[in-house]
C-alpha cells in the first residue's frame, strides 16, 4: 500500500468509534505510526475533522424538540378508537341521536343498514384524538401502508376529490369488516372518505349515483363503484360536497 492509498483510508478514520476494530483501519494506523510524513498528515487531518465536527455539533438545538417528540407518543398510538371511553361516549351519543332519527323515519332493510354504517363512520370521523394512524405519506407510501395493514390500496377517488390529496389514514372496523379512513386536505374544512369492499357490506342498497344524507355534524355522500363502497363525510354544506363528486 502506498502513502496515497493509506491516506484515502485514514481520511475516513473516526477516533473513539468502532473503526479502531476494523482490520483495514488497523493496518493503515500501523503504517501511520511508522511513517513520520504520513503520521503528520494524519494528525493534521484528525485535527481538521475534529474542528468541523465540533462546528456541526455546535448548531443550536430547538429547545422544545425533545418535548414535542415525547408528546408525539401520546397522540400517535395504535389503540383502536372504539376502545377509548371518551369516544365510546361520543359514539353512544351520536348512535343514539341517529337511531332516534332513524326510528322516526322507520327505514327498512338496506336503508336502515346504510344508516347504521353512516352513524358508525360519523363516530370515526369525529375522533380527533386519534383521527389517523399515519400522516404525511406520499401516494406510493400510502398504498404500501394500506397493503401492509390490509386496507384498500386500490381505491379510486372522483378527480375533484383526489385533487385535495390524502393527509393521513387509518383502518377502522364495522361489523367485523375493515374500512379504510382517508383524511383529505381541505382549506378551512375537513372531510374523510371511507372505503370498504362491497362484498363485505352487502345489502346497503347503493349504486353508482351518490346518496346524500346528514349524519351527526356531517354532510355525507355514499356510492358504490367497481366493487368498492365509498362514503364521504365533510363538515361543509351539501352544495359544496356535491361539487366534489
Amino acid at each position: 500500500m502506498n502513502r496515497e492509498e493509506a491516506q484515502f483510508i485514514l481520511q475516513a478514520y473516526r477516533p473513539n468509534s468502532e473503526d479502531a476494530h476494523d482490520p483495514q483501519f488497523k493496518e493503515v494506523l500501523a503504517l501511520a505510526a511508522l511513517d513520520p510524513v504520513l503520521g503528520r498528515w494524519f494528525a493534521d487531518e484528525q485535527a481538521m475533522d475534529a474542528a468541523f465536527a465540533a462546528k456541526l455539533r455546535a448548531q443550536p438545538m430547538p429547545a422544545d424538540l425533545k418535548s414535542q417528540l415525547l408528546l408525539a407518543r401520546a397522540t400517535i398510538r395504535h389503540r383502536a378508537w372504539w376502545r377509548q371511553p371518551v369516544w365510546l361516549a361520543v359514539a353512544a351519543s351520536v348512535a343514539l341521536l341517529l337511531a332516534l332519527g332513524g326510528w322516526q323515519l322507520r327505514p327498512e332493510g338496506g336503508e336502515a343498514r346504510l344508516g347504521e354504517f353512516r352513524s358508525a363512520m360519523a363516530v370515526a370521523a369525529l375522533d380527533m384524538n386519534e383521527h389517523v394512524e399515519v400522516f404525511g405519506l406520499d401516494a406510493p407510501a400510502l398504498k404500501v401502508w394500506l397493503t401492509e395493514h390490509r386496507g384498500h390500496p386500490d381505491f379510486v377517488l372522483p378527480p375533484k376529490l383526489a385533487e385535495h390529496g390524502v393527509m393521513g389514514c387509518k383502518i377502522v372496523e364495522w361489523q367485523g369488516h375493515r374500512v379504510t379512513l382517508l383524511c383529505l386536505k381541505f382549506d378551512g374544512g375537513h372531510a374523510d372518505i371511507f372505503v370498504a369492499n362491497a362484498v363485505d357490506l352487502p345489502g346497503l342498497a347503493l349504486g353508482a349515483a351518490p346518496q346524500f344524507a346528514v349524519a351527526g355534524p356531517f354532510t355525507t355522500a355514499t356510492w358504490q363503484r367497481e366493487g368498492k363502497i365509498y362514503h364521504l363525510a365533510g363538515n361543509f354544506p351539501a352544495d359544496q360536497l356535491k361539487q366534489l363528486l
Partner: protein
Amino acid sequence: MDVDEMDYEQAVALYHEDLHRFALSLTRNADDARDLTQESYCRLLTKSGQVRDRAKVKSWLFTTLYRVFLGWKRHEKRFPHLEITANEHELPMLTPETVDKMDSSVVLEALQEIEEHHRTPLVLFYLQSLSYREIAEMLEVPVGTVMSRLSRAKAALRTIVTARAAQPSDTNVVPLPSKHRNLSKSS
C-alpha cells in the same frame, strides 16, 4: 418488535440531537429539519414492527429520516442543489484553528453547498453515529463508494470554507494566512 414507552423515550433521549443535526444538514432549513426529525420518530411509533432488533433503532431512524427526505425532495423539489463554484487553485491554507474561530453557521452553510450524495456521508462521518456498513446500507452503495464520496466531500467542504474565509468579509469569518495547501497529497 413493538417500541414500548421506555424504548421510545430512550430513542428520543439518545438520538434526537444527532438526527436533527443530520436533518439540518440535508434540508438547509430549521423548520424542515424539525419536521423531518418529527416524521422519523412518528414512523418509529407507527411502524415499529419494521424494526426487528432493538440495537438497530438508531440506524433505522437515520435511514428513515434520509428516505423521508429523499421522498420530499423527489416530490416537492424544495431542496435545490447549489453548485460549488469556488476556485480551489488560488485559495489560502485552512487550519483547524481557523475553523475553530468560525461561526458554526458558516460551516453549516458551506456543508449545505455540497451536493447531497456527497454531503450525506460527510455529515454521518462527523456525527460518528453509524458504522460504515450502516451508512453504506442506508445509501445503498458499497462501503468503498461511501469512502470515495467522503473523500471528495471533505475536499469540497474545505474548498468552500476556505473560499468563504478568503472573501472580503462583512461576516464573522476569520481571515486566513495566505498559503497554499494541497488537500490530497502529503506535505
